[in-house]
Structures are given as structure tokens and as C-alpha cells.
């Protein structure tokens, strides 16, 4: 059986009968280079994949989203918060919007601005008590459940707590169908969501 490598190898390496010290050293050098490459690949891959494996556990992602007086009972209002992951270079993208629904003065719902279909910003219409999405026409009721259109689930909700007169939410991640679970379960693995 003919060795397919025969055709591509340089002339000097073809004949196994002519083993020389230089050929051996060349092969050793190739092996060493391979090993160096493999060692180098670890930090390179670690750097590139860094954002994927960044630990979120134990960090404080509670951010204030406004004074309670901004949210009258029975109404839904647009609020803002600062991205807890933000850096100064984020500029305007560090300020994020959300919809705060004050159900009865005690209970709240804080919805992500992002439509569950394609993450476009939903608008609240208080008269018809509906959220409408401008992209593909997703519609949600006031409690965030799907009313019509293509969204595969209701609006993403942030976990909230009241500290003094501040409404705090657990934020820090763009909600998508895969990442939404973490909004509600801080510190837990996404698999539990």
C-alpha cells in the first residue's frame, strides 16, 4: 500500500532508509513547536472564551431603578437603571430602561424592555393596557403575558426588592431565551431556570 504522504513530503524526508540526525532533529523540533502551540492555546482560548465563563455568583447585581413615588399604584411606568456590569467606556449603553408595574401599591412587576421574540424595545400603552413591540408586532398584556403575535413567552421579569424608598432590581444581563432564567434566580446556575 502506497503511503499518501509520499507525494507531499519533501524529497529529503521521503526515503526512510536515509535516516539522518538532521531529519530526526527536524521532527523533534516540529514536536516541540506543536507542544508550545498547545500550551499557548490554553491562555488564548481562556481569553477569547472569557466572557462565556465569567462567574456571576456572589457578585452584587442589585441596582436601584427609582424612587417608589415614581411608580403610582395601578400604573406602569418607564424607569432606568445603570448596568451593574458597566464600564465607563460603555457610554450611553450603560443606562438601561425597564417597565415598572405597580400592581396595588405593595406588589410590583419589573419587565425587561426587550421583547421575548427578538429583543426589540416594547412600548406600554396605558389606555389599552398593552405592550406593543415595533419590530414584528408582539403584544403583551399588562402582567407581561403574551396577548398576540410571535413572542414564544411573556415579557422577561427582573427580580425586585424594596430598600427604603428605592425599588431595586437584579439586573446585569441582556435577556434572551437562554439567558432569561438568571434574571429571576440570582446566583443560581442557568440550568435551574
Amino acid at each position, binding site marked *: 500500500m502506497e503511503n499518501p504522504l509520499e507525494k507531499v513530503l519533501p524529497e529529503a524526508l521521503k526515503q526512510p532508509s536515509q535516516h539522518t540526525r538532521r531529519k530526526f532533529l527536524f521532527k523533534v523540533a516540529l514536536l516541540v513547536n506543536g507542544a508550545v502551540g498547545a500550551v499557548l492555546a490554553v491562555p488564548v482560548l481562556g481569553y477569547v*472564551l472569557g*466572557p*462565556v465563563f*465569567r462567574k*456571576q455568583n456572589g457578585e452584587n447585581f442589585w441596582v436601584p431603578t427609582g424612587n417608589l413615588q415614581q411608580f403610582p399604584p395601578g400604573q406602569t411606568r*418607564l424607569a*432606568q437603571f445603570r*448596568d451593574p*456590569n*458597566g*464600564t*465607563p*467606556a*460603555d*457610554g*450611553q*449603553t*450603560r*443606562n*438601561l*430602561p425597564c417597565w415598572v408595574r405597580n400592581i396595588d401599591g405593595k406588589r410590583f412587576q419589573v419587565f425587561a*424592555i*426587550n421583547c421575548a*421574540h*427578538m*429583543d*426589540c*424595545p*416594547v*412600548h406600554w*400603552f396605558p*389606555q*389599552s*393596557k*398593552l405592550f*406593543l*413591540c*415595533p*419590530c*414584528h*408586532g408582539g*403584544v403583551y*398584556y*399588562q402582567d407581561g403575558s403574551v*396577548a*398576540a*403575535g*410571535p*413572542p*414564544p413567552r411573556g415579557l422577561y421579569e427582573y427580580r425586585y426588592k424594596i430598600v427604603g424608598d428605592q425599588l431595586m432590581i437584579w439586573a*446585569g*444581563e*441582556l435577556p*434572551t*431565551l*437562554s*439567558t432569561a432564567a*438568571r434574571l429571576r434566580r440570582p446566583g443560581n446556575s*442557568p440550568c435551574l431556570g
Partner: protein
Amino acid sequence: MSGIKDKAYNLYRWFDRRLGLAKPITEAAEHPIPASSASWWYVFGSAATVILVLQVMTGILLALVYTPTARDAWNSLNFLNHGLTLGWFLRAMHGWGSDFMIAIVLIHMSQVFMFGAYKYPRELTWIIGVFLLLMTLGMAFTGQVLRFDQDAYWGLGIGASIMGRVPIIGGWLVHLVLGGPDIGATTVSRFFALHVFVIPGILIGLVGLHVWMVLRLGINEWPMPGRLVRKSTYVREYEAQIHKDGVPFVPDAAWKDATFAAAIMLAIIACALIFGPIGPTGPPDPTIIQTAPKPDVPFLWIFALFALLPPKLETPLILIAPVVAILVMLALPLYAGEGEKHWSRRPIAVLMLMVVAVSIGIFTRLGATAPWSPDMNGWSADPVQPQYLKGRTPLERQGALVFQNMQCRNCHALGGLGGQRGPDLDGVATRMTESQLIRQVLQGSGNMPAYGNSLSPSQTTALVKFLSTMKGYQPQAQNDANRLLAHGVSPPRDKSQDTAK
């Protein structure tokens, strides 16, 4: 005079003695091609290469000023547009160059497909071409993100939400694409690295291979019906043909390539001068939600598919269809590497190309108009026209108010004004009875939300009474003589009646 000539020749000799490039370059330029291939149909590949050079040059010039951070990118784009001499023109050239490049690459690909040029021995040239198409689209998408405005910000959200639909690793992919858990500085800088280093590097390398193979394997001959490609005989036949009627690429074919490339460059310059730079739209501030994000033209058809696919099919189709489409394109020359090249003997190929082209064209057109998007300002911007209020009872007019205030207009048009997500309501009373209207309003269905919780019984009654008057186009009745008399005006004479007398 001859002294200068001699000196120049000596200088040339000095360099070529060391570089040794004159001979291979001359050979490549003059390599023989079939006389039939010196055609205007064979100019698209070289035009795409020329546009690539334009994109690299304008890109480098833009990078002198552009600031790749989420904080400053939008400001630097505006500085380029307004604060810098001819900065707007370079942005316009780069933006229009991108659209032209995609168009030319697609035309080039269609031509190669129609002429059967992907068949033996040029299979790998086609396969690399498929990757070149993907890289070109990758440049378009990353470039759209670098134009970091409102559309770019929400476009990233759309990209992330598609990644988020991948099972199991979706969450990781989202973080990998965004460079973190959220859209921000690391997102822009990684798209900058992709757009400026990674993809262009791959693109230029693959273009080199692509052109090298074109030179090595020869330019495809003009297909003739009945002349079949066989692996055993093709190369011999091709060489015999070149021997018989071959012409040198330069100048016999190259003058057409050069002329077409110049025409395309003039077209890009004209677009840049007339239409100006593309964007930026509003600032990338997520708290400004008064926006209807839309992707750039090359991706509008995908945007349309998202709106028109049945929601249940969406995720599997979005994730699987592109993979299948790319695999089919890659496998094409391996499956159909022999046989007929001429389009008149390949009806299925012609039909496939037409169906794909027409579909993408239609979906692009739909994406540009986006009739499925609610008109967010319809309820406050589009008035109820007088003809819908004329002769209506107070209750029905109250219904018209409910119709406006409840944002019905955002999805339903009256008299051609308003959203097109739902059906026009001009003739709704001819399609539905009053009780059907009540049920539809209160319970909704399909793409319409239920209004049972937001409408009071009296509002519902008024709205339905108003809708029940919508009987479509009706020719106006005779003049309302009583009303005119009551106001003391004599009714205008009907001339047709006069003549009848």
C-alpha cells in the same frame, strides 16, 4: 531623452534582478483563455475584487478617525459626517461600496452557477467562493454594528436573541457574541476587531486562493448545449480549445473587466454623492425606545422571515435552514461536478436560481415596508376621517373615540391610514356581525390581543356600534336635499336630470 529611457530601464532591471516578478506577472496577465470567455458576462469577479480594494482603502481612511468604543463611536461618526473635510464622502463610499459589493458578489455567483463554471475541475474554486460570500455578509453585519447607532444597538439585540435560541449553549453564545453579559464597550471593540482584522484577513487570503485557482485552472469556457464535462476528457478538451482559438487575457478580455470595474466605481461614486453616507440614525441610547429597528438592506429578507414564519417553526428554521443552505452550496460541485453546463439543458438549475432570487427579492421588499409592524403613532397621528363620522349617531361617534384611544389604529387602517398588522376595517361590518365583533374585540384571537380587561361594557358597545357602520366603499347618495333646504341653500341642479327632461 534616450538617456532617461536607459536609466529607467536600468532601474527596472535592478529591481527585477532581485524581485524576479516580471516574468510570472506577464505570464499570468497573458495567459490564454477561450476566445468565447472574453465576454461581458465574465467581468463580475474582477469587479468584486476592485470593490474589495476600495473597501480596504476607504476602511483604513475611516479608521484614522473612527473610535471603536460604545461611548464614542456614534460621536466619531457624526464628526466624520459633519466635522471633517470630505469625511461624509468617505463614509458614503464605504457604505455604498458595501452594498455594491454584496450585489456584485451575488451576481457573480449566479453567473457562475448558470454557466456551470463550478463543475470539474473548478469545484474548490466554487467552494472557496461560498466562503467568500459568507465573509462578505459577515463584513456587512459587523460593519452595520460599527455604525453604532440606534439600529445597530437593537440589531445586536436581535443577533443575541437568535444566538439565545440555540439549545444548551445558547447562553454562552450570547455572551461570546456580546463580549459580556450585555451590549457595551466590549461588544463594539470585538466587532471592530472582527471587521478590521479577522474577517478581512480571511477574506483577502481566500481571494488570493480563488484568483490563483482561476489562473491555474483557466477561465471557464462559454458553455455549449450538448458539450458535457467528463473528468477523463475535460482538461484535454479545454487545452485543445485554448490551443485552437485561445486569446491572451490581457488585453483581449481585460479591457472589458477594466471598463466594467470603472463603471461600477463611477456608480458607487454617484450613489455616494447623491444619497450621501448611510446613517448614523439616533444615538445608541437604550433608554430612547421610540424606535423601530431595522437591519440594513442585505439582511431585510431575514427580518421579514422572522415576522412571517409561523412562531413554532421559527427557532428550528432559523437555526437549521442556514446550515442546510450553506451545506447544499458547498456540496453542489461535488454532487454535480460533471455533465451539462449549458442553462438550456439545466431547467431545474434555472428554476432554482429564479425561485431563490425572486423569494429574496420579495422578502427584501416586504422587510423594507414591514406591514406586520404596528404603527406605534397611528392612534395619535392618524385622525378618523370625516366620512367615517358623517351621519353617525353620538354613540357611534363615541365608538370612534374608543377606536382611537385604545390604539386600535396602530394595527388597523381606516381609509388607508394606520397600521397594517391587522385587516383594514373599512368594510368590517360586511364581514362580521355585531356579536362576532363583540367576541373578537373582547376575546381577541390569532394576532389580535383580547380587550376584555381594558374596555368597559359601555366602551365595547360604542366601539362595536361604530365598527358596525363600516360597510366599505359606498357610492354617495343623492344630495341631502332636506339638510340643504334647512340651511337655506338651494340644492345644486343635477345636469343629467335637466337633459332628461
